[in-house]
């Protein structure tokens, strides 16, 4: 059952990131880097969006042997509609303050 409650600032950030290219499939890692959300915040958001039918996912077989398949995500039309109701400008400042950039691939911290 879809909720009418306003998405949280973190959810809005994820929606905005994905709505920038609604047709494109995104990796969780890339979404985390773009939004600055930790995995513990990002994945619950993706799971909830998926439960509500606002996100679809598919598996991408790995091109490298021994590596597991990766999950890809994109918004459904319902998710795109939800994203249209949110705006980064309305996100509370504390959500922005929590943003901590993820490390770039190949760069050790």
């Amino acid at each position, binding site marked *: 059952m879809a909720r009418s409650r306003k998405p949280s600032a973190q959810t809005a950030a994820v929606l905005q990131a994905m709505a920038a290219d609604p047709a494109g499939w995104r*990796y*969780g*890692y890339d979404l*985390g880097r773009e939004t600055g959300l*930790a*995995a*513990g*915040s990002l*994945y*619950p958001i*993706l*799971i*909830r969006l*998926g*439960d509500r*039918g606002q*996100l*679809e*996912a*598919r*598996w*991408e*077989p*790995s091109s490298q042997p*021994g*590596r*597991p*398949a*990766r*999950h*890809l995500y994109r918004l459904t039309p319902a998710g795109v509609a939800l994203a249209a109701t949110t705006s980064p400008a309305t996100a509370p400042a504390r959500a922005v303050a929590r943003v901590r950039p*993820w*490390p770039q*691939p*190949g*760069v*050790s*911290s």
Partner: protein
Amino acid sequence: MSGQRPADAGSTGPRGGDLPRRLLAAATAWTPAGRADWSRAMLAELDQVTGRRARWRFALSAARVALVPPRSGRLTAIAAAAGAAAAALIIHLLLPQAGPVAAIAVPGLPALSAWFVFSRPGLDRQVSIAGRAAQAIAVACLAACPAAVMREIMLYPAAQAGPGTAPYLGPVWTVIFAAELAVYLLAVLWRPGLLGAGRHSGLPALAALLLVGWFSVLHHPHGGLVLAMAAGALLAAGTLAALPALIRGSGIRPGLRSGAAEVMWGVLLTGPALLDAMLLVSTRSVIAAEAAVPYTITEAHQQGATSVLAWVASDDLGGAVVLFTMFSITIALIFAIVHVFCDVYSKPPGPLPAAVRRPDCDDAT
């Protein structure tokens, strides 16, 4: 809604890996079935994260999601909270001297367990009738534990003599007791399928019956403590002797997982049943018989208790909680020893007929 899974989607990648990967892989093993795809997705993404600190941060953060994924159990939470609140009110009205800690912790912690289990998307709902029956018995025995404690405190004869003379559970023991009940309930509700399709369920029930009989005999009014213990030892020996034969005869393939399940259910069914029996018998027999001389009971543990039950009925029910814990550990050890015995000495049976194979236990061994 995780999309079509490719053939290698179930793979967790190369075995082993660094500590963050091992940690996350261990956590994903506990993810409910309904969220397993998300755990695999997080594990696959960890392979893209570089840098020691970043990998630890990702693994720890994702492990939390893997262990406690989001749930849609809003109604479950409301029902659990309402049940706990109602139970707290009943405890407060019937037993005001129990205090706020008991009123909150005793129903609250088990309600938390129930909410945790029932709000999991991957809850095992395909359970045999025998499994459901054993689960119902275990839940009933658990629910009876706090009820029996309350009854003992309410009916304690010395309680009429004035405040401070009734048996009590201090706040610390109350929280420990509530936490034990919560852990038991979590185990009972978690994987009832592990109990099996009727081949296991008779064993813990038999052990529970005999051990309860043992402790009932311990307070037989016409027998001394030595006689009671001798009878109890015979019953326990009979139980232990019967278990290996029953296990062999039942066709159970010895294995760590089925053994662990058997141990778990032995404890779940026997421990709470023992505490219930002790409290009910001590309330009825000891207190009723010695109601005229309440200090005999109150001082029982100091003067040298004539039986375990007299000690339980003495002025600190924390003793009963100690026994409850000791029973659980002892029973777990007994069942573990029996299963080790079966593993070592029993002949390896052939493959079980398809009709009685249970993928969750048999294939894992």
